[in-house]
């Protein structure tokens, strides 16, 4: 008699077949800022993918007779001191910046996650050691660490990427460690234990998926800062090498033309800012959508 009473219950939500991800997407979709951010990011991802076919010029088509030409119908963003089309270079550069962002963050997420999970899940002395390593890395002035790493490996885009990945490891490591620690205490973990589940399965089936949301959020935001860090390394001459159109390097190279040919600085600067704003907006939106604590 009791069971049948539920059939006429009013369901809590009208839509059927939704999941946490879909829910997150719904809340994300409502957030205008986040959508704008995602739009910007998608736009740059698009550029990165098809840029080479879109750009009117290659990355190193010099025309020394057309040096430092202001923006015009022919050169939308003007030309640089080699007479190269800045517009084309920025389009090509999207790929570099996104690559640095994505891969460095993936690198630090992978390494950071492994260390963080081990520390958080196994605790005790392993946690002690890993946490101390994180402390050491965090106490390092990060830009100096990056410079030192690039100095060891030699300046190149790939090495800049590695350096940025390294300096971000402890951030992710600590994030995941604390997440694992808190999820470990959740009741659904106890309930998984209560049904007799093995530790390792609990780790992969319950703890990991549930710690992903903050990692995705932090990762998106970290991509933003990685792009800026790459630009800073580029500015110091420690990033991508010529003639790669890395935006930070373009800025650094153009710095002496700030007065004579401001477009050489303005456009790459705007490109960096826009991309970074895009990732930040998207990250904030994801945080609101994925991190229930922030939900009102």
């Amino acid at each position, binding site marked *: 008699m009791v069971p049948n009473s539920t059939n006429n219950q009013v369901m809590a939500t009208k839509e059927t077949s939704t999941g946490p991800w879909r829910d997150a997407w719904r809340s994300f979709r409502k957030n205008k800022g986040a959508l704008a951010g995602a739009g910007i990011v998608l736009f740059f991802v698009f550029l990165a993918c098809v840029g080479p076919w879109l750009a009117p010029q290659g990355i*190193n088509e*010099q025309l*020394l007779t057309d*040096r430092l030409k202001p923006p015009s119908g022919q050169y939308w963003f003007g030309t640089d*001191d*080699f007479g190269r089309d800045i517009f084309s270079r920025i389009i090509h550069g999207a790929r570099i910046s996104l690559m640095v962002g994505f891969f460095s963050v993936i690198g630090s997420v992978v390494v950071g996650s492994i260390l963080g999970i081990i520390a958080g899940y196994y605790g005790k002395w392993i946690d002690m050691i890993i946490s101390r390593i994180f402390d050491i890395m965090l106490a390092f002035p990060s830009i100096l660490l990056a410079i030192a790493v*690039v*100095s060891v490996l*030699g*300046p*190149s885009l790939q090495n800049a990427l590695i350096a940025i990945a390294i300096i971000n490891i402890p951030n992710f490591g600590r994030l995941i460690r604390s997440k694992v620690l808190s999820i470990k205490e959740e009741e659904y973990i106890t309930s998984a234990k209560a049904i007799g589940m093995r530790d390792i399965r609990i780790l992969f089936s319950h703890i990991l998926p549930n710690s992903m949301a903050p990692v995705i959020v932090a990762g998106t935001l970290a991509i933003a800062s990685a792009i800026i860090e790459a630009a800073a390394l580029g500015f110091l*001459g*420690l990033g991508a*090498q*010529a*003639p790669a159109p890395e935006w930070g390097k373009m800025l650094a*190279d153009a*710095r*002496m*033309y*700030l*007065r*004579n040919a401001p477009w050489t600085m303005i456009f790459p600067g705007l490109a960096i800012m826009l991309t970074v704003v895009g990732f930040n907006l998207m990250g904030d939106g994801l945080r609101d959508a994925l991190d229930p604590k922030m939900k009102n």
Partner: protein
Amino acid sequence: ACSSDDSSDGDTKKDNDEGTTETAEEKVLIFGRGGDSVSLDPAAVTDGESFKVTQNVLETLLNFGPQDTTINEGLATKWEPSEDGLTYTFTLREGVKFHDGTDFNAEAVVKNFERWASGSEDLFPYYGSMFGGYAGDEGHVIESVTAEGDYTVIFKLTRAQAPFLKNIAMSPFAIASPTAFEAAGDKFGDSPVGTGPFKFVEWKRNDSITIEKNEEYWNAEEPKLDRVVFRAIPDNSARLNALLTGEIDLADGVNPSDGETVEGEAALQLFERPSMNVGYLGLTSTRPPFDNQKVRQAVNYAIDKQAIVDAFFEGRAEVAKNPMPPSISGYNEDIPGYEYDPEKAKQLLAEAGFADGFEMELWAMPVPRPYMPDGAKVAEAIQKNLADVGITANIVSYEWATYLEKAKNGEADAFLLGWTGDNGDADNFIYVLLDEDNIGSNNYSYYSNDETHKLLIEAQTEVDEEKRNELYKQAQEIISEDAPWVPLAHSTPLLAGDAEITNFFPHPTGSDRLNKVDFK
């Protein structure tokens, strides 16, 4: 022994007080530059930023000309070489006092040379390299330095050294107060005491060095300025900004691209430092394919030097064809140099068996230098030129110290580098940069040729100027043919200053004497 320190300290304070009360009439020159000095003991350092300061605090026995490297009076008023070139007699200026009040005399000169000769390369690096080593070393050129009376010093050499007088005129061999350096020991470089037109006042590390007028300077007319402050502003653009805002009066290391801007500003003037340098693309002749002379020549033909000079030196440089600038005696005008000729280059490549080109690393300097204001950009331009003849050049760069070390180890295929002369002697270019003796040192391209070696060694001891020049010209011919480098440019480094500045003559060595400088 401490008295000298104390008195100079006392002076400093007193003058400081005066300084602050009389700011209105004081003539202060603020000289912005790219880096700080390492030490103010000129003998102990090799960097130009140190000499920029010491040049005005300590003086050498002989001076270079105002804008060249001819030999002029300094602390010595007369100098006489013996016939065989083994003995030099210097007559010293009388009535000169060090800033600490002690007398400048022959004794002081002897003590300075004794100090250097008893040192080692890490203490007094230039002494060893210019005079063949230190006391007791086999190659040491200076056999003895002796005082005869108060104002005569006699140098005895073990063998003739052609550029000896030029060496004596170099900044590192400025005479310091023996009382001071004996008292200060290692710390002498913190507060140098010399006879120069300016006295050392204060050093705020990485920020500023202040020197002030030496009221007791032997030339009563000089200096005109009351105080000079050397400020370190590493970024070229920022330095120029500081000049534009009036925070500094004179800026070293102006980007060629900013030359026009400065010329366009009424309140500013542009100074050109006479060129005494060479910027080049070194081709490591031990590394294939650059062990092939034809390939090296092909690369020489492939690069459009004029375009590079126009674009990245903004035309403020002379296209180079020899390893040294034309202002140096012994320069060979008759060398034709390599014209920009991609066809010829391709042909040579084909002859060498590289019709389809090849792939190589092209090393780009990570730092600006007067002889190469922007290595990375020059590299990009070269990369393009090489691509046009079928050579794929990948630009690589290392952090500066690594760059030099790796290049020195012969790890580079082709690398950008350059050299600013120390004393304006041909030896200081050709021998130092291209002789087989200097492989593993400054001969980064690993060029070795017995013929040039013979010529260059002979020239070192040849006292007759004519004959010596002839030897160098021969060497240049051979080098041009062997093409271990692509000489690119002899640049004219730029400085910018307040329009009010007068009598500032930038010196080709990079160390400027400011004793005549004045404000309108």
